[in-house]
């Protein structure tokens, strides 16, 4: 890869991926795992990588309990320190973890994590557009559900 890139050349493709990785390097340990995951997904092999990671998600859960099981399994692969260092295996587990949360939300609106709605929404927004279409749709539906929950909360 050219180490003298013109970042404006292709600002939705390779250049964006390079920029994301450089920003992560600039933030160092302060880079958020969501941003590290986004940087991984936008790399030249990012789409292939995320497809492979998500291919392990079979069969697709058909109950909230199954989604929770998936989430718990993914969580065992996430070590915070590895995640903050951008370790590929930890990022893969984090992507699966995020997909389980999105899947449960899209399934019937259940929130299966203690993470704040703001953080979940940001993760759905940032990572959602970067993964394969089937999961993009799940993330989109999860986001709609999350907004509905927020609206219900605000009218109580």
């Amino acid at each position, binding site marked *: *890869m050219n*180490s*003298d890139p*013109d*970042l*404006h050349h292709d*600002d*939705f493709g390779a*250049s*964006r991926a*390079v*920029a*994301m*990785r*450089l*920003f*992560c*390097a*600039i*933030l*160092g340990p*302060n880079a*958020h795992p969501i*941003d590290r995951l*986004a940087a991984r997904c*936008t*790399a030249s092999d990012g789409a292939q990588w995320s497809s492979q990671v998500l291919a392990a998600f079979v069969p697709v859960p058909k109950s909230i309990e199954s989604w929770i099981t998936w989430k718990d399994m993914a969580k065992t692969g996430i070590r915070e320190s590895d995640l903050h260092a951008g370790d*590929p295996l930890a990022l893969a587990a984090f992507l699966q973890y995020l997909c389980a949360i999105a899947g449960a939300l899209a399934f019937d609106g259940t929130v299966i994590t203690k993470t704040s709605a703001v953080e979940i929404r*940001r993760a759905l*927004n*940032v990572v959602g*557009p*970067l993964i394969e279409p089937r999961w993009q749709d799940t993330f989109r539906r999860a986001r709609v559900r999350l907004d509905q929950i927020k609206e219900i909360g605000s009218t109580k």
Partner: protein
Amino acid sequence: MSATSDPLTPSRSFPETQTVWIADRLSEGEAGLMLANGYVMESYVRPLSIYCSKIGLARMVRIDADDLVHGFFANRLSNSEYLKSWLTSGLRLRQWLRNGLHFYVHELRRQNATQLGLHIGGQALSEEVLSEGAAHDHEFERAWALAALDLAMKETKEELETRNRRDEWEMFWSHHVEGVPHAKIGERFQLSAAQVAQRAFAVGAQLRDALCGILRKDGALGSEIDVEVRSMMEVLNELRS
């Protein structure tokens, strides 16, 4: 020895007080003004030009985007008060310039219309022009994020090349952008993994300092840098509408 001359020592953090580089230059008279103007043109011409192209601003006045931005700079920066007005505006420099560009385009359109015996403009011009700019905020912020990073990279590479340390940029790039493990990079440069890690880390800190400098000149506080960088990442990741 200064902090930045040692490749293994990350540069010091910026102080929390806001020291606007442009304000310092403007207080130095004609020579300072030229430096400030030069910096503004070099740093902002590209994002403004890309912005003009993307939102069709240049087409409105039938001028090439680069020519439009250069014309804007020539018109506004020839007034020694222009940047001084920014200092009291409370805006980031990039936002000030983008708003100024919209006003400049409006002026050009009005001139063209007058020549043709037409009339445009009217009441609440400021609100109209500023809301026109705000509607395309995302495009501009995106162009700015890439331009600022580009400038920071350029500055870092030039600094390393001056000290005959271009290899360290390659180590940084291989690890952080291409994802090559430190040990593998070490084989190429005949260094241990730890040595490569130290050098790549130092370059990362240098790049961060360069970006900090650019953001501070734009009007950001030292304490806001991480927030700024995160918002730059977000604007790059947002969905195309």
